[in-house]
């Protein structure tokens, strides 16, 4: 089983930045981009008008050709006659705004009017790794990453600020920062952080009583462990505390995405180790974090990893590894229930 590592230096972050509709890609592979740079844009008509000449003018198909005054592709000015019904009481269809005739088919004239631009903006700085034809590009950046377990699908960039308690006075310091809170946080507390003007939040765990509500928060949010009651292990905590007041990216990928959410610190001089295959190392000796409610969030070292599958108290069969926890106790857990902390 290939286990991805939670904390990785020289990690290559990849972030697709794409338009919802096809347009023109404004970058090229290898190009350096900054936060806010336009990756792609689509220029679309602001609105359309379809005029059914046959039915509106109540004419026969044979009369149609004489009625339509403009061809598909022609630019029109406000007030221009697009179609005219001749006769004693003539009727007109005039362009309500400046625009273009985009289709004349089947007795209907379609006008496209105005213009709106939709842009795909890079939320992070990095290099263009790959183009997504007509849609955008993949931005890559190398640096230190801390892989989370749950995100609400949003992205933020900002300076990390460690919030040790959620009180009115401390919340005042969170404006325009990415807040790190070590502990289990409730929806109410997150709403307070959002109201205080934070750009994002990275927390140890989420209070499970509001499981379905976190997704709808406007605040970009990453939970490092998932849902439950825990504090971070001292090693992880020291890594994140070292990021205090440094610029970080919060890539809060959601469960629908293929990858897990990430807290990322860009480094300009780092080597892109993730370009190379991650070598599979023997389990024994590795520092791992335990999943599951019993030891939620605690870490330890693998001291035994027999290949043979064993029966668990639940009745399931699994390869069971022995993990020595920080307090010296040794516990046995299924190999599926551990995550590798570092390389």
């Amino acid at each position, binding site marked *: 089983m290939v286990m991805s590592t939670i904390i990785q230096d020289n990690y290559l972050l990849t972030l697709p930045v794409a338009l919802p509709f096809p347009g023109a890609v404004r970058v090229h592979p290898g190009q350096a981009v900054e936060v806010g740079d336009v990756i792609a844009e689509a220029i679309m008509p602001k609105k*359309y008008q379809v005029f059914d000449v046959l039915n509106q003018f109540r004419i026969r198909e044979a009369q149609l050709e004489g009625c339509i005054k403009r061809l598909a592709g022609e630019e029109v000015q406000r007030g221009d006659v697009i179609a005219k019904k001749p006769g004693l009481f003539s009727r007109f269809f005039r362009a309500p705004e400046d625009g273009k005739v985009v289709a004349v088919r089947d007795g209907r004239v379609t006008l496209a009017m105005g213009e709106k631009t939709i842009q795909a903006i890079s939320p992070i700085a990095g290099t263009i790794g790959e183009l997504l034809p007509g849609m955008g590009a993949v931005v890559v950046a190398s640096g230190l990453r801390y892989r989370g377990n749950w995100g609400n699908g949003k992205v933020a960039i900002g300076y990390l600020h460690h919030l040790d308690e959620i009180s009115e006075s401390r919340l005042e310091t969170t404006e325009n920062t990415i807040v790190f809170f070590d502990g289990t946080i409730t929806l109410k507390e997150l709403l307070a952080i959002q109201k205080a003007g934070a750009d994002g939040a990275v927390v140890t765990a989420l209070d499970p009583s509001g499981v379905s509500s976190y997704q709808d928060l406007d605040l970009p949010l990453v939970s490092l462990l*998932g849902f439950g009651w825990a504090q971070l292990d001292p090693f992880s905590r020291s890594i994140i505390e070292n990021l205090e007041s440094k610029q970080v990216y919060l890539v809060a990928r959601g469960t629908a995405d293929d990858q897990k959410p990430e807290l990322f610190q860009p480094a300009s001089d780092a080597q892109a180790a993730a370009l190379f295959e991650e070598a599979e190392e023997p389990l024994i000796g590795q520092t791992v974090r335990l999943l599951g409610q019993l030891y939620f969030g605690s870490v330890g070292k693998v001291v035994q990893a027999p290949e043979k599958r064993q029966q668990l108290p*639940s009745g399931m069969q699994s390869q069971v590894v022995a993990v020595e926890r920080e307090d010296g106790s040794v516990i046995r857990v299924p190999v599926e229930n551990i995550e590798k902390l570092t390389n």
Partner: protein
Amino acid sequence: MDKVISSYLGIDITPQRTQAWLFDDHLGKYELLASGNSQTSSTKGLMEGIDGAVGQLEQKTDRLLWSRPGRFLIESEQTQSGLKGVGITLSIGKPIRVVLVGVSEKYSLEPLRRLVRFYNTEIVLEISLQNEPNFSAQLEKLTNTAFDLLVITGGVDGGPERSLRAMIGNIRLLVQLRGVTNRPQIVYAGNNALADYARSEIDAGEDLHLARNIQPESGREDLSLAATALMNAVRRLRLKEFPELQGLQGQSRVKLLPGEFARSRINQFLEQTQTNEKGVLQVHLEPDYAHAIAIRNNRRMGVWQNNHIDERIVTEILEQSDQPLDRGITAAYISNRIINPGYAADTIEEMSMELSWLCVRVRRLLVQMAELYSEFKYDPPIGLQDDYEPIMLSGNCFERLPSARHSFIVAQDGILPHGITTLVGDDHNLLTSLGVLAEFDDLLPVQIIDSDLFSGLATVINVDSSVTVEKKVLELEVDEGYDSLRDHYQVYKGELKRFETIPGNDLRVYLAPEPESDVGIGLRGLGGWLSAGPTRLGLVVDARGRPCYLPADDFARQELRRDWIWNLGAW
């Protein structure tokens, strides 16, 4: 002349794993030679998983299956032995964003929802041409919505055309705006008289899929007429999503199908060939989605459901559990299970949460199916009211459960079937793959299904009786076939009773229901002989009633649930 041995390779790709199976007919009929299993990589592309699974098969069988990764060694000469075909099924991919366009809500949009919800789709826009007759507003809605697939229907054949024609014109414009590389897939399944007009107007080449009208005449709906067109559209979208597979699809005698479609093909075959006049139901549970397919009277019904959690699900899990569970811990466990699909339930409490959750997922899946199809009669407390046999259980979630009784209790409590039925486990997860390999040789799935690769889980007699709990509902006379005396048993309301079967021997049972008991033989009180083939659990009599009898007290309810599982034995 040496016998020509034909081999076929099946590959199924799910978000967690890629599986491969090699079949051949060297013993005169098709058999499973070996299987391989590899982790699917979300970052390194799907070829990595295929390579791993096929590599394992090569090692196990000492045969070369591809000349280089991505190029299968297929023997095209019919007189030579070798690999004759490769079938790949895709059970992976993001939800497809769908726009539905129909003339009316009842006759167009409702059938279209049934049609597209069979796949992993998310309906992002619906346009009813009756409710939104303004062509300009229709066009604006279309151009302002990001979507991958548009399905349009409406009008009976030869009926009025005006509104459909206008919409086709709008779709033409949309296709032009999106450009060749990013245009959506379009399925036209409306008034047949406009099919050629749609083809020439929309002009979207292979991205346009024409189907026959799903409502050819007033009051008649036939979704099967659009099934192939929709499958082709879904396949093209998946190939766009996973371009690394395009090289495989381009090889001759390599077929690629969406997993949902392949599964339904086998269920359809089973329903057509069996003589019990019952439907076939399949419940497929994977860690991140569930898929149900029901075939009845040659009509396919199906629904896909992506996994999620909300407060109501947590409540249902607590009600279903056989252990006293804390609400917060349960909510945390399930939320974390969704995040970590590979997690193994470690403790008794975790297994209880796991089983309850799976059961709730089955229930929710069937509720959704009943909402879509009025002829699928399912209501959570009452259960499934039509006759379905067999009921097939497949997917990684069933496969990982520790024993047959665990799979049984999830399915039985989730489905609550009526009458007499058989639960069958697809232990090797073969159904999906057989669905695509049937394209090469239809004998292959037939012979594999007839082999012992599918394990009968249990034959179930569901007793429906309105009597109060602990009153007798059924007497059984069991003939084990050893010239021994027949044993007599009594079953009381509220019981779940199991009778073992012996491998190789059918268990003959005479059912003598009480006058108010219905055992699915046609009338209340009517009994008769039943022959139950050997299955892992044997014959199970479910006399718990519909709704299932359960004490109101939490502790008593949990204890009763534990008793039921205990009665199913250690298997």
